[in-house]
């Protein structure tokens, strides 16, 4: 037995001797393409993952709002039945809407963006804040995209902003870490918008000056633009005016539509000077928005003047119906922000502040680029209210299928002057959605609720 003992000591000592080496040996990275993100380069690469963050293709931002909006209608003889019950229910604003056991990508995918941002922010906190542009890009980018993701979620799953009710209306879970054990609560709508604005302001503070290298990245102009949109959403037009103005100071280029050659089915490409930041709606589900096979609302189409180039560029006619082709992306449903939208925000804010001429100037600046060269006659308004009416109509015509119509319906319905009731007919049954209906807030999936027993469901 002594022999065995000696041998055992011998083998052990060989292993002990090599112990230091052994720890290195066992710490080797199993897959070189896998990193434990630590450096600024790693974190920037997380945020440069356009597939996740910007969503061209496999991921992206909610479509449910646009699904419920009034830009289109579905041929209910065949096409309607090709959609899943969930989208059929979304189309008809069903109060019984349920995803069943299916995942709700409109929820899951923006929260994936949030995870990437949180991961980047946490790892960043372990690095020295060196004030460099690279550092600012990562931190600002992470804050910006988290802000944007929360904003898009709030438009679907939380009630429209109301200065009083938002103090108690449930908001969306504001996940702040990458910790798997983080307790998620809905909080209030006020907290949701506080967080959205807070993140975006913080991003503004650290984002380097100058335009971004790529529209997939955040920039100061993009942050100002987003802030303008958020303030407009919560009905603070004074702030919306300030931020839209700041945005246009940095980036104001508009695309002259007369220069566009119509070659393909989607005339716009991704290198469009109007794009402040690029984002697309999710294309995972077969939804009316992503299928590109639904008919554009006939009345809406009738609003476009013959010389309005959008009539030609935004639509193709087939069998007497119009299909929308005006996405600012060759393949997916663009829902990022453009300078055109910021012009419209500034114009609307000016009108609401009573500055009719400034409002109309912005509108005309935009429309001059939309009409065939030499055909545009500047619009005039009799008063601020008339300006606002024209601006809201042009907003409708400019920003259809951009993910903003649902938000516009939610906010404009609060003013009886603009409030409308939506109507759909499916197989002879008429469905309506009156203004300020609780169905303007979509249900949280049963799946999410099952993981969070304390979470309240949105009433329909």
């Amino acid at each position, binding site marked *: 037995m002594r022999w065995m003992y000696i041998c055992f000591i011998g083998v052990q000592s060989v292993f002990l001797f090599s112990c230091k080496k052994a720890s290195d040996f066992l710490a080797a990275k199993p897959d070189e393409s896998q990193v434990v993100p630590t450096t600024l380069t790693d974190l920037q690469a997380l945020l440069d993952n356009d597939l996740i963050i910007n969503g061209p293709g496999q991921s992206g931002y909610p479509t449910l709002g646009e699904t419920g909006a009034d830009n289109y209608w579905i041929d209910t003889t065949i096409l309607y039945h090709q959609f899943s019950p969930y989208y059929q229910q979304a189309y008809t604003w069903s109060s019984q809407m349920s995803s069943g056991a299916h*995942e709700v990508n409109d929820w899951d995918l923006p929260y994936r963006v949030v995870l990437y941002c949180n991961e980047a922010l946490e790892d960043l906190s372990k690095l020295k804040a060196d004030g460099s542009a690279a550092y600012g890009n990562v931190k600002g980018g992470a804050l910006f995209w988290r802000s944007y993701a929360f904003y898009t979620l709030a438009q679907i799953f939380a009630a429209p902003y109301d200065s009083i009710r938002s103090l108690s209306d449930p908001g969306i879970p504001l996940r702040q870490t990458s910790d798997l054990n983080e307790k998620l609560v809905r909080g209030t709508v006020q907290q949701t918008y506080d967080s959205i604005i807070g993140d975006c302001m913080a991003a503004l503070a650290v984002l380097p000056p100058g335009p971004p290298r790529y529209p997939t990245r955040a920039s100061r102009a993009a942050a100002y633009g987003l802030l303008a949109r958020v303030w407009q959403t919560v009905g603070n037009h004074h702030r919306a005016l300030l931020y839209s103005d700041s945005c246009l100071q940095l980036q104001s280029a508009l695309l002259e539509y007369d220069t566009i050659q119509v070659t393909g089915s989607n005339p716009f490409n991704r290198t469009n000077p109007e794009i402040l930041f690029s984002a697309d709606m999710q294309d*995972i589900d077969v939804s009316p928005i992503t299928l590109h096979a639904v008919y554009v609302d006939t009345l809406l189409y009738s609003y476009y003047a013959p010389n309005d180039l959008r009539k030609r560029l935004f639509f193709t006619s087939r069998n007497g119906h119009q299909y929308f082709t005006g996405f600012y992306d060759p393949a997916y449903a663009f829902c990022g922000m453009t300078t055109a939208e910021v012009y419209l925000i500034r114009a609307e804010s000016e009108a609401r502040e009573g500055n009719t001429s400034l409002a109309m100037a912005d509108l005309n600046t935009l429309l001059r680029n939309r009409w065939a060269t030499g055909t545009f006659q500047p619009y005039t308004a009799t008063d601020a209210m008339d300006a606002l009416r024209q601006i809201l109509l042009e907003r409708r015509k400019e920003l259809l299928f951009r993910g903003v119509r649902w938000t516009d319906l939610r906010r404009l319905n609060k003013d009886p002057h603009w409030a409308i009731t939506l109507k759909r007919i499916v197989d002879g049954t008429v469905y309506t959605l009156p203004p300020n209906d609780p169905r303007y807030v979509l249900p949280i999936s049963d799946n999410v609720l099952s993981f969070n027993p304390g979470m309240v469901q949105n009433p329909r």
Partner: protein
Amino acid sequence: MMKFFYQRHFAFRIILPLRNRLRISSICLISLITFLHVTAQEKFPNITFDGKDVPFSKLMAAIERQTGYTFLLTDLDEVPQRKITVHVNNVPLDEVLNKCLQDWPLTWKLKVPTILMIRKIPEADTVGKGMLGVGGFVLDSTGAPIEGVVVTSKRGGNSSFTSSNGEFFIRSIPETDTLVFSGVNVLTQEKAVGWHSWVTVVMKSKVSVLTDVTVYYNTGYVKDDPNRATGSIGMVNNATIDRTVSSNMLDHMENTAAGVLFNHVPQGNGNTPISDPVLIRGISTILAGSTPLIIVDNFPYDGSLSNINPNDIESFTILKDAAASAIWGARAGNGVIVITTKRGRISKTRIEINSNITYLQRPDVFNNPMIASSDFIDLEKDMFNQGLDAALFAGSDPYSPITPVIALLKRVQDGTLSSTIANARIETLKGQDVRKDVSNHLYTPALNEQESLHLSGGTATNTYYLSVGFDHDPSTIVGSVYDRLTGRLDNELTLGDKFQVGTGLNLTYGHTVNGDNPGMGFESTHGSKYLLPYARLVNAAGAPLDIYADYRKSFIKNAEQQGLPDWTYSPVGDIFAEKHSNASLDLVLSTNIGYKITHFLELQLKYQYENQTVHDIDGHAADSYYTRDLYNLFSHASATGSLVHNLPAGNIRDMANTLLISQQGRMLLDFKKVLAGKHFISGLIGGDIKSTITTGNTSRIYGYDPQNSTTNSALAYTTIYQLYIEGEQGQIPYKQGFSKKVDNFLSAYSTVSYTYDNRYITSGSLRFDQANLFGASTNQKGVPLWSVGESWIISKESFYHLKALSSLKLRVSYGLNGNISRLTTAFTTADYYNGALTTPLNTATIITLPNKDLRWEKIRILNIGIDFATPNNRISGSLEVYRKNGSDLLGQAPVDPTLGLTLNPGSPTYLYSNIAGVRGKGIDFHLITHNLNGKKFKWITEWFLSNASSVVTKYLFEVGAGNAYLNGNVISPVKGRPLYALYSFEWKGLDPTNGDPRGWLGGRNSKEWANIWNNTPLDSMHYSGPAQPTYFGSVCNTWTRGRFSFSVNIGYKFGYFFRRPSINYSNLLTNYEGNPDYARRWQHLGDETKTSVPSLIYTPNVPRDAFYSYSTVLVERADQIRLQDISVAYEVDLSHGRKQLSYRHLRVYGYVAGFGPIWTANKLGIDPDYVGVPKDGKRFSVGASLSL
């Protein structure tokens, strides 16, 4: 004497007290006396012999034949020549021998089965001269005691046999004498007595020609006698391996061991999993992979299994339970297959040449279901007449392909063709079946060749083995061929008593070439469009014809007129325009050093280096359809009308290189010691280090000109180009990448086996593994994996008197093995990619979030086995029952999607965690019966029967919608069900009014197919059963008459299900995927009583078709019995009676495989191994092996 003894061992500080030695000697004495006593009681068999003046050898031969005993003549060369005259009839052996030897100075002893003849000792020689008593042990090379070895003193003439413990003792021999050790299967050895009173002798196995009687199992760490095993071990010997003819090593293993299931089903409609080609005792993991660990000689093998030439394999050992395989620790959970390669042996140089050819029949493509051409054309005509063709068969755009029949009908409609001509042409098309052309022009019979040459031999100090092998395997799919060249060199050097040095070199070059030939799987490369049932691939003269599967003919003609190069596609003509080659070079260098520290302790150092390079080249020639298509697509008319080409002309070349470098080192101490009396202990303690680094890169080159080796790579990959097809845009496919993977392992282990009196064997093993896999905390814990085993050879007990069952052994083992998955780590990890989708920036994707509790998967195995044999092994076999419980299995734990971990959008969010459990159980039964054992005619049957089933015991993922469980090919774990299970929608017959399929929803008949599809919960689905066999095995009958042998192997698989394909109208109308069930569809009222095929509707209704495709009416039992193969062989002895040359022989053999089932449970004529795919033809092999 004492002094010398101590001095010799002093260096090692071992002091055996005198008291002990005396005790050992006395035990030996007692056992010897007992042994002699038993001998005296022996009843001798009767002998019949009639010979006058014949050599004694004749009598010897007669006795050997009649008794089965063997004569052993030590140093008595003259004896066999002596003349004797004997006439006996049924006289006991002792009388016969005593009478023969009475005049000779000889005596004899019997120790079954050996008759020892020795000289009588002259009394005078033993008087005076310091006589000694010498005792000792005789062991084999594995350290196991050998029973029945004859020990003779050369001068004294005293002799003795070793007991069952390998002990012997001889009294009264001169101190200057030499002991001679000889036995039946061992080389005779001499040892000078000197002053020793105690000697240990290790015997070398005798080189046995033709049949190797010593069968050892090999765990990759130790070779041992199966009799001493406590675990479950399957052994496949060389004769069995040689029975099969194939260049693929695994083919030689099928149906040769119990509990090993081969799932070799070609890719088809995906019924039976092909992810588990080899399973040992079922599956006991979910995500970690179920492939057994493959060991070649000593080390885990990292290269491709196709690199192993079956001609170089001596044997397979299959380690099935914990006691057998726990030595491999964290990687042994799926069982272990140890491949022992051939080695040189002590003999004159031997040459073995093996050569064979195999004829592979053309695969049967008519096994692919296809709608009759006439049915399809009638359908097309009907739809055309109703104006429904545009959306389906023609497409609404100007470039989508249009079928020839629709094209003809359109021309008639346009008035450019007379209807008579059109109808005549259509009638001709009706008579065509595309499978004829596919069969004749895309498939071919093939002739495979295999050659191998071995050279081996050696002396007592040096053995060598050298082999070269060549395989040339053209495939039955035109344009594909596999070639392999293997070389192997092994050398073992024995330096003195202590050192042994071995070196090995193994080189494999493999080369595969494929053309552009998807065969019957045409749709895989043509946008899911199937070949039209009436398509023609060649014209009457056999020249390739174009088919228009991707674009409309008029569109292509227009493009060509506009100046684009040829855009047509001919499946037959394009085969050789593409060349996909895969060349691999695998080099394995190994060396081992053994040093015997003492007679019971050996230090072994082993090292192996492997370098495998694989070069993949997908060459798309400039004139290949692939290149032309891409080139044309990336062209468009500019504003001025001229054509702009955004892709350079020339070949497109995809390259992928992989380099695997694996280094493995081992240091171990091996000990074998016979302790006092009947105690034998053996074991080892050691450590392994292993590092495998795999690096790879892929690239694509456009505009490659092989003549000048020029390329054009200055392309704008991020630019979105206008494509030739109106309204389509695209980026130039970019394929550049690098990868590097590192697999590091450190292991320490020990095994001990203790044998008492050759009756009780206890074994145990313990192993710690560490890998660069987990977070530091898990590694520090070092989970031990272990096993214990116990064997009891009941038949050696004194109380055992069961004559009919002469050998009976009971084994029980229990232990813990591991399994590895690299799916997750204890850190946040992200994958890096070059180039985002819309920017050239590098991107990172989060793959895992930290999982701090990650650990090995654990598999607990309990095995109880009985080994039995009747006298003379007339019937022998084993029966084993086992339980295999996997716990801590890596599974997908569902998590809140709000956490943001969504990896596959649309599917539930999960985290890999050690949360799942699987319980497996089964029975392995193995039986060999010698049905007829005549001198000339023998009939042996080998039976294998296994039952293996495993069910999920724990899984946290919530049961999803039923439709997530429809693919029996994919593991979708459900608690209480097998890992691969077949679920389907309840079938409620056809609607009698219109032939719609009906299902079941919410407690009533339903035709809401989308609703059924989406909202049927799993518990309302019909569960048919497992999708993998639960009972399987084989029966192999071998008949031998003289030198001629004939064997037939029949395999069977029971207890599982498959889904048969049927008509899917959506696929028929959009992809032309037809099925003969179309003809059996519901057409008129009342048909619902005769058929279950739904009626045809012209509007594709995906949910309706999907419901039918996955309904219970299409589920069939897969049970089958197959005639696996037939083998014949004829041995020719070339030794011409010269005994020392008896290994000279010629074996001529034939082999036929691929017969198909002889019985199937389904009565539709569907071969469950080939559902909806071409069926492999028969393989006929003939060959010869020559040993010189």
